[in-house]
């Protein structure tokens, strides 16, 4: 069955890049551009995995993490943080809030595929 990935990202070009990257290996991708839309999308239909940027409009990525990882209904959905924030404190904060993985931009497609494969085994 095709795995569904929800991408929360507000940079148009990054969306294109990552979407292309995921399409190539056969994931189904839904994109939302802010934190509020992300929470709505998860409530409507649970994805198999979430790629989450931290600097997003309305509700930021940390808050999205807190809500989703704090709710037993959604806490088991793997969340990979994809962010330009490279500071140790941000990484620690995201991991403390329950992020499953933390990737800093820029990254190579292979790094993303490897992680997706890890969290979404066939």
């Amino acid at each position: 069955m095709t795995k569904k990935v929800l991408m929360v990202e507000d940079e148009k070009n990054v969306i294109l890049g990552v979407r292309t990257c995921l399409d190539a290996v056969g994931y189904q991708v839904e994109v939302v551009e802010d934190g509020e839309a992300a929470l709505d999308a998860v409530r409507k239909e649970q994805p198999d995995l979430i790629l989450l940027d931290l600097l997003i409009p309305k509700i930021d990525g940390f808050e999205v993490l807190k809500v989703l990882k704090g709710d037993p209904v959604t806490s088991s959905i793997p969340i990979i943080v994809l962010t330009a924030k490279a500071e140790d404190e941000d990484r620690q904060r995201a991991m403390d809030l329950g992020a499953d993985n933390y990737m800093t931009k820029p990254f190579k497609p292979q790094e993303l595929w490897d992680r997706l494969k890890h969290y979404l085994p066939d």
Partner: protein
Amino acid sequence: MILSKLPEPVNLETIADNLADAVFMIDRKMNIVWLNKKAEEFFNTSFEAARDRNIADLTAIKKIKGLIQEVFEQQEALKCTYEEASVKVKRLDQRYFFKIAINPIFHQEKLWGALLQLTDVTRFHEMEKIKTDFVSIVSHEFRTPLTTIIVGVEMLKEGMLGDLTPRGKEVLEAIGADCERLNRLIDNLMELSRIESGTIYVEAEPTDVADLVQEAVRPLKLQAEKQGIELITDLPPELPPVAADFNKAVWVMANLVGNAMRYTDPGGTITVRVRQRGKRHFFTVEDTGCGIPQENMEKIFRKYVQVSGPGRKGAGGVGLGLAIAKDIVMAHGGEIWVDSEVGKGTTFTFTFPVYQGGESVTLPEAD
């Protein structure tokens, strides 16, 4: 003496009181003998009240005692860099930074006291801070667009978006390599701004020397082979561990070896050695490269300095690596230096303390 030729209304005091710097004269016991008007104003005192008071008490500058002591012991004027010589002063809840100059005064060839000159460099400090923040923001902002570029280039290179002509592939390889370079540059800038803003800290733990060297050298082996350079490691067995932050120490070593590779021609050799001397380990990276001209040896550890010289090609950096390496080594209480001979080669040496047990986190100086 030229001062005796001063015109009538002007005397030495007029000059001293109109200086922009705060000036103190102290005796051998560090008690104030004299001060100028600027010093009275800034430290909110008067000549009568300040006289015979200890300079450290009056100014409340923590490290001033140590600096004066150094001058007294060396019997030489304080020679240090801008960073080392700046002191923090609190006044009316505001922080000021001063650059400090201390000159010993002799009487009948014996040390008598010293003249202290404090120059307000608060504005410079603010500019430094702005620059540091700016570097951090800019390098951060580069990451997002670079993501799109790298992801795109990699997928095109792999042929996942259609076939490429051989030429097209070649061009993409070049773009990919330069993306890597940009990426490294951003990492270095981030690291530097972290160090400068004082948010970096070094966690000194017992670190195995062989692990450290292997971790640094392994990723570079293939590249060295490709360049036709022999990369040798020479470690005596059973070296005691050093007190070091593993990742940062690896970074320093990898950076020095990477540098050596950039300046060494095919057929050359790079040797990494570690030797223990007393309570320190000496790490050396020796190359048979083009060498560094004498006049440039002092400069290379400064930020944004890239040394040019015979055979030193534009090496594709901005001259941050060694500045960061120096900061990291010094944060461990170590030292770093270079020996070089043009045409023969260069040797970088840095030291880390041998682990003594009980070392914990070393925080950067709060100032």
